[in-house]
């Protein structure tokens, strides 16, 4: 770590990990309610559990992005963060808002649009925090060295914050409500967040592989160009059946098919950089998460997205378990795994220790990725059967659901593996202080004075 203000990221990452635990435990509970529907049904109904599950996810991913930005930008801009104090104030606002939201959800106080359930004061808090953040990083970037990585990161973060304004606009007309709701939801995850993802991935590749910056940055511009060229009009794939004009069926089908390209490029980019790079960086777990993120994002967002995005297919599959399958693998690959990659990369530096936790951390990668993949497969099978029986044959929703129980049991098992993996990951990042499993790692253990260890502590230089 070269700049002391990068330390801010540590607090963000710890807060994010806490919410990550809440998110996966909420998910496990929701998965259990699918298996045993009477469980907690009058104390903590499914709608509240799901709200906690999705909201905790969104907020921890954002905390991770903010933390990653505070970690990356000083190194890229070659100067300290404009104001460390503001960065902590921003975090306090976000944590208070998040805790406030969790408590009010449990008490049944919330707004009623999916994912945007935060009470108004929390929404305002998020906006204020975002403004503080934008001011803080923009001042840092403007005064420092300009790179493509910071440029794309800052554009992505500005754009996602501006789009948040649509969270405050809730028209009485349901179709308009839905149309503008997607300005936040789709243009975040299939637009601006991809910019953030690409720039963080670019930074990690720069540090982990040692490939020339010029090469990486050119790739980045191509990736984000394809992301926005496809993703903006790709919004159309949400506009098929909510009361909007029929032309969205063609625009949405064509452009959301193209949305596969940026994810394919991010995957190709990561592997090509690793092949080209000559650096043997000791933080293997960070490399595993980076490559894993790019790969699983391609399958989850790219392949599983394409699976049901053509309007002729979506007419039958819309709003079935196929959507749930895609949502889980896409979020995990693109944004969860990427955040965990940057946490894994940065934590040894932030805590001033060697990457002691490689085997546990890599084990958690395979547990989580295996669990998520299995969950995606069983939900896809469930969704296929549901689509046929309900949408083609016309059988009643609940009688179809009753026949999918075996898939929901398997999904619960897969979810349990993910939860164990997540807790293992959190443990491996925060707790071990000594090298574990030195022999099984098969390579020379990194000691405090070796050049590799120094490289880790200094950020891979």
């Amino acid at each position, binding site marked *: 770590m070269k700049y002391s203000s990068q330390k801010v990221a540590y607090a963000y990452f710890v807060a994010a990990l806490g919410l990550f635990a809440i998110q996966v435990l909420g998910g496990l509970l929701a998965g259990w309610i699918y298996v045993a529907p009477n469980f907690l049904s009058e104390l903590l109904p499914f709608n509240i559990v799901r709200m906690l599950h999705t909201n905790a996810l969104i907020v921890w991913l954002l905390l991770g992005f903010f933390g990653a930005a505070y970690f990356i930008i000083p190194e890229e801009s070659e100067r300290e963060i404009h104001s460390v104090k503001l960065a902590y104030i921003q975090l306090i606002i976000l944590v208070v808002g998040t805790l406030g939201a969790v408590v009010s959800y449990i008490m049944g106080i919330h707004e*009623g649009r999916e994912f945007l359930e935060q009470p108004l004061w929390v929404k305002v808090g998020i906006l204020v925090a975002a403004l503080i953040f934008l001011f803080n990083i923009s001042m840092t970037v403007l005064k420092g060295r300009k790179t*493509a990585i910071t440029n794309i990161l800052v554009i992505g973060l500005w754009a996602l914050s501006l789009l948040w304004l649509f969270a405050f606009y809730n028209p009485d007309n349901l179709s*308009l409500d839905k149309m503008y709701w997607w300005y936040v939801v789709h243009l975040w995850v299939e637009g601006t967040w991809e910019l953030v993802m690409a720039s963080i991935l670019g930074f990690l590749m720069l540090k982990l592989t040692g490939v020339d910056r010029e090469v990486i940055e050119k790739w980045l511009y191509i990736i984000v160009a394809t992301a926005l060229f496809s993703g903006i009009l790709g919004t159309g794939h949400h506009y098929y059946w909510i009361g909007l004009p029929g032309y969205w069926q063609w625009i949405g089908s064509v452009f959301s098919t193209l949305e596969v390209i940026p994810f394919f490029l991010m995957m190709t980019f990561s592997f090509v950089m690793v092949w080209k790079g000559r650096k043997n960086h000791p933080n293997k777990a960070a490399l595993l998460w980076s490559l894993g993120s790019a790969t699983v994002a391609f399958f989850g967002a790219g392949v599983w997205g394409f699976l049901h995005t053509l309007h002729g297919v979506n007419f039958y599959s819309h709003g079935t378990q196929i959507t749930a399958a895609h949502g889980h693998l896409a979020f995990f690959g693109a944004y969860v795994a990427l955040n965990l990659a940057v946490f894994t990369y940065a934590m040894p530096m932030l805590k001033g220790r060697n990457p002691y936790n490689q085997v546990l951390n890599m084990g958690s990668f395979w547990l989580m990725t295996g669990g998520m993949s299995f969950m995606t497969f069983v939900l896809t099978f469930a969704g296929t059967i549901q689509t046929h029986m309900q949408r083609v044959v016309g059988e009643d929703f609940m009688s179809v659901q009753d026949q999918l129980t075996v898939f929901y049991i398997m999904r619960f098992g897969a979810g349990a593996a993910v939860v164990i993996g997540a807790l293992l990951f959190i443990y491996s990042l925060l707790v071990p202080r000594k090298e574990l499993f030195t022999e099984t790692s098969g390579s020379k253990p990194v000691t405090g004075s070796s050049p590799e260890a120094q490289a880790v502590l200094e950020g891979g230089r």
Partner: protein
Amino acid sequence: MSEFLTKSRARNIFYGGSLFFIGIFAVLSIDSHLYVVNESTSKAELTDEVVLGKHVWEKHACINCHTLHGEGAYFAPEVGNVMTRWGVLDDPDDAAETLGSWMEAQPSRIEGRRQMPFFDLTKEEVRGLSEFLRWADKTNTQDWPPNDAG
């Protein structure tokens, strides 16, 4: 590619192309907004009851179990066409009564059956919710869902 496509060219393509697509998206959004107001939702009037019903829908986070026009959670049935399914689409009184007695009967407490919570709604709220669902059912959704099962 590497000779022609320099970093600054790639960056300019990114900027120019993105602005171009944002422009197209903005134009189509305006057109879609007008289409919603003037065509797809113009068959049923957006009354105060419908607006009240939307607030009831939001206050109880119905979207986190049900889907509405296919969006939401996938835990409970689609309700964008529930009034058609119940055969009460064109009868406001019958619709409100059917919905009211359904809501009063919850939770069923049947073992192994998904539970809908009991929501303590006033008569006006039930009427509003029912009008909201009737209004949504009359929206032109390009013939989705494929059948009454939703």
